[in-house]
C-alpha cells in the first residue's frame, strides 16, 4: 500500500475511533435540536397552570366582558370583598387581584396586585384585553356620533397586508422566486460552519504534529517516509475526519428535524399558538388563519430553498470547506512543527487566526450587502474567501468572481503548502530550541 495512504488511514482511524469523537458526533445534533425545540416545549408547560384572577371593576365597564381563556379565569368581586382580598392576598384563592378605577377612561390606568411577580403572559394578556375593550367602546362612540352606516365593516376592509415577492431574473431571462431571508440564512450558516471546522480541525492538525514531535516518534517515521507524505497524510486524514463528522451531523440533524415534524411538531406549533391566544383577542378566530398562513409559508420556504441553486451551493461549500481547511491546516501544522510546547504555539497562532476572526466580524456586513466592495475583496483574498465567498454564494455571485476566487485560493494553497512544507521539514527535527519568526524565515531557504 502507498505509504501516504497508510498514514492517512492511521490518522483517520485513530481519530474516528476515539470516544470523544463518537460522543461529539452523536450528541451535537441532539443538543442543537433540543435548543430549538426546548423554548416551544417550555411554553407548552407553562400554559397548563390554571389561574383565577379576581377583578374589582370600579368603572362598571368590564363586567361580564373579560373573557376567560383555557387557563386564565376572571372572577368579579364586590368592593367589600376586594378590600378583604387586598388585605390578605396570600391566603386568598386568587392568583392576582385586578383593580379597575372608576376613572379608567380618562386615566388609562389599572392596578394588578399579587403576592408574587405575575408572569409576563398574564400581564400582557390582561393589558391587551382592557385595551381592546376600551378601544372598541371608543370606536363605537365615534361611529355612533358620525352616523355612517356599516362604518366598522368599511374601516375593517381597509386593512391591507402586502407580500413582496422577490424574483431573480437569470441570464436567460428565466425567473426564480427568491428569498433574501433564506439566502441570508443559508449563507450565514455555511460561512459559520466553515469557520468552525477550519478552526477545530486546523488545531487538530497542529496538535497532531506536536504530538509526533514531542513523543519523538517523528524521526523514526521520516526515516521510512518523506516528511511531505507524513504531512499530507495527516492533513488529508484529519480533513476526512471533519467531513465525516459534518456528514453525520447533517444526517442526524435531518433525521431529528424530520422526526420532530412528524411526531411532536404539531403539538409544538399549537402550544406556541396557545401562548399567542392569551395575548391576542380571544375568540376572534385568529388561530386557524395564522396556522394556515404558517403552512403556506412553510411550503414557500421549502419551495424557495429548492429554488436556490443547491448543487452549486453544495459544490462550492465542499470546495471552500476543503480549501479553507487546507490553507489553515498546513500553516497550523507548520506552527506545530516549529514549537516544543503549547505555550510557544500561542504567539504564532494568533496572527494565523486573525483573518479567520476578521471573517466572522465582517459576516454581518457582508450578509447585509453581499455585492459591496468589502464583500468582493474579502471573497477574493484567500485567507478570508473560504468563509466570505460561501456567505455570498446563496445570493448568487457572478461566474467570473467565483472563478477568480477559486483560482486565487488554489494558487495560494500551492504556495502555502510550499512554505509550510519547508518549515515543517526543518521544524520537526529541531528539538529543545525556542524558535523565533526570524529563524523560521531562515528555514524557508534551507536546501533539504
Amino acid at each position, binding site marked *: 500500500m502507498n505509504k501516504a495512504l497508510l498514514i492517512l488511514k492511521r490518522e483517520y482511524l485513530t481519530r474516528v475511533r476515539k470516544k470523544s469523537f463518537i460522543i461529539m458526533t452523536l450528541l451535537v445534533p441532539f443538543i442543537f435540536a433540543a435548543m430549538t425545540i426546548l423554548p416551544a416545549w417550555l411554553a407548552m408547560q407553562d400554559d397548563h397552570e390554571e389561574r383565577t384572577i379576581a377583578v374589582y371593576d370600579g368603572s362598571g365597564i368590564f363586567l361580564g366582558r373579560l373573557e376567560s381563556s383555557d387557563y386564565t379565569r376572571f372572577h368579579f368581586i364586590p368592593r367589600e370583598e376586594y378590600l378583604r382580598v387586598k388585605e390578605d392576598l396570600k391566603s386568598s384563592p386568587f392568583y392576582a387581584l385586578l383593580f379597575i378605577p372608576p376613572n379608567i377612561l380618562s386615566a388609562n390606568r389599572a392596578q394588578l396586585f399579587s403576592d408574587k411577580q405575575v408572569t409576563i403572559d398574564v400581564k400582557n394578556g390582561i393589558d391587551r384585553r382592557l385595551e381592546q375593550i376600551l378601544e372598541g367602546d371608543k370606536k363605537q362612540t365615534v361611529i355612533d356620533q358620525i352616523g355612517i352606516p356599516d362604518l366598522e365593516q368599511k374601516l375593517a376592509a381597509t386593512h391591507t397586508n402586502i407580500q413582496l415577492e422577490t424574483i431573480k431574473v437569470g441570464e436567460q431571462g428565466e425567473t426564480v422566486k427568491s428569498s433574501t431571508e433564506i439566502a441570508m440564512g443559508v449563507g450565514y450558516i455555511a460561512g459559520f460552519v466553515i469557520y468552525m471546522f477550519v478552526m477545530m480541525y486546523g488545531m487538530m492538525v497542529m496538535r497532531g504534529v506536536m504530538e509526533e514531535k514531542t513523543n*519523538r516518534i517523528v524521526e523514526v517515521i521520516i526515516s521510512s517516509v518523506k516528511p511531505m507524505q507524513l504531512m499530507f497524510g495527516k492533513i488529508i486524514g484529519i480533513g476526512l475526519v471533519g467531513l465525516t463528522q459534518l456528514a453525520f451531523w447533517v444526517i442526524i440533524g435531518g433525521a431529528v428535524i424530520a422526526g420532530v415534524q412528524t411526531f411532536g411538531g404539531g403539538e409544538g406549533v399549537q402550544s406556541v399558538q396557545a401562548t399567542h391566544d392569551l395575548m391576542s383577542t380571544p375568540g376572534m378566530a385568529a388561530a386557524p388563519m395564522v396556522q394556515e398562513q404558517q403552512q403556506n409559508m412553510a411550503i414557500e420556504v421549502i419551495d424557495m430553498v429548492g429554488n436556490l441553486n443547491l448543487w452549486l451551493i453544495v459544490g462550492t461549500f465542499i470546495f471552500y470547506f476543503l480549501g479553507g481547511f487546507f490553507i489553515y491546516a498546513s500553516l497550523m501544522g507548520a506552527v506545530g512543527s516549529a514549537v516544543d510546547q503549547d505555550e510557544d504555539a500561542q504567539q504564532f497562532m494568533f496572527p494565523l487566526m486573525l483573518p479567520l476572526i476578521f471573517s466572522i466580524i465582517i459576516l454581518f456586513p457582508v450578509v447585509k450587502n453581499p455585492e459591496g466592495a468589502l464583500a468582493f475583496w474579502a471573497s477574493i483574498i484567500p485567507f478570508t474567501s473560504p468563509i466570505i465567498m460561501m456567505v455570498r454564494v446563496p445570493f448568487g455571485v457572478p461566474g467570473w468572481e467565483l472563478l477568480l476566487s477559486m483560482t486565487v485560493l488554489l494558487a495560494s494553497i500551492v504556495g502555502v503548502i510550499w512554505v509550510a512544507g519547508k518549515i515543517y521539514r526543518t521544524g520537526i*527535527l529541531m528539538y529543545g530550541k525556542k524558535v523565533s519568526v526570524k529563524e523560521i524565515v531562515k528555514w524557508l531557504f534551507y536546501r533539504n
Partner: protein
Amino acid sequence: MEFFKAEDVVKDYAGHRALDRVSLSVREQSVFGLLGPNGAGKTTLIRIINQITAPDSGEVYLMGRKLKASDIQHIGYLPEERGLYKKMKVGEQALYLAQLKGMSRRDALRNLKKWFEKFEIQPWWNKKVEELSKGMAQKIQFVTTVIHEPKLLIFDEPFSGFDPINTKLLKDEILSLRDQGSTIIFSTHNMGSVEEICDHIALINKSKKILDGNIYDIKEQYKLGEYELETPELGELNPLFTANGFELLETDIRGNRQLAKFRKADGESNREILQKLTGTLDVSAFREVIPSMNEVFIQVVEQANQKQ
C-alpha cells in the same frame, strides 16, 4: 566486502558547515562505530544515510550502488531522539511502523510474533504504550527497528536511557544480528561499549573526519610507549630507569610490591626493554599499556582542537 561508502560528503546549514568532505567505508557484516563529540556532525551523516536530508555535494553508496529512495526498506534506524505514539496499542503500532518500512501486513505480523516471543512480551500486544515502563518501551523500539530484517542497521546512542539489563540484551542482539549478516553503524559517546562491540571506527570532530580504521590498529597507533612493571624490590628505582634511558612516570608501593609506570625511548622493542631490566631487577610482572578508546578519543579530539 564494502557495504556502505560515503565519498566527500558536504552538508551546509545556513552559515554552518555540518559535514566537511567526509568519506567513510563500512565493511559488510561488521559493527562500525561512528564517534565524535556532541555537535560534530554524526547525526547529520546518519540522517543523510536515512535520506531524511540530502548532501549538498558528495555521494553515498549502499551495496555498491548510489543510495536510492527504495533503499529505505533495507535500513533500520533507531534515532537518539526516539519515541512511540503514546495512545496507540503496542501491536497495532509495531505493525504500522513495519508497514511504513514497506512490509506487507502478513510478513510484518509473522516477524512481530517471532520477536515478541523471543523477548517474551506477547502480553503487551493490546496494551497502550503509555501503560508501559520506559524499559518496556525501549524493547518495543528495538523490535520496530529490526522488524523488517534490514541489511543496514543504524543505532544512534542506543544505550542512552537503557537500564543495564536492557543494555546487555541490546548488545547481545546487535552482535547476533551482525553474525546473521547485518551491517551495523553505531554512533555513541560511550567508549566502553565501542571497545566491546565495534570492529572499525571513524571519529568525526567539528564536521571533519579526523581518524578511522580498525579498532586494534588505532589503539596500537596511539600507544604512548608506556609500560607497567611490578617488582618485590622496594628501593629507589629512578637511577636504574634513567641509566637505561627510560623515563619513570610514577611509582607506588603496595604492601611488599612496588609498581612502576615508565615510558621507553623511541624504537626499542619489548624484548630489548625486558633484557635491560631483568639483568638488574627482579621483575614479577611486566605489561605494555594499550590506551583505551576513551583515552584515544580525548587525545585525538584535543589535538585536533589545538591545531586550529
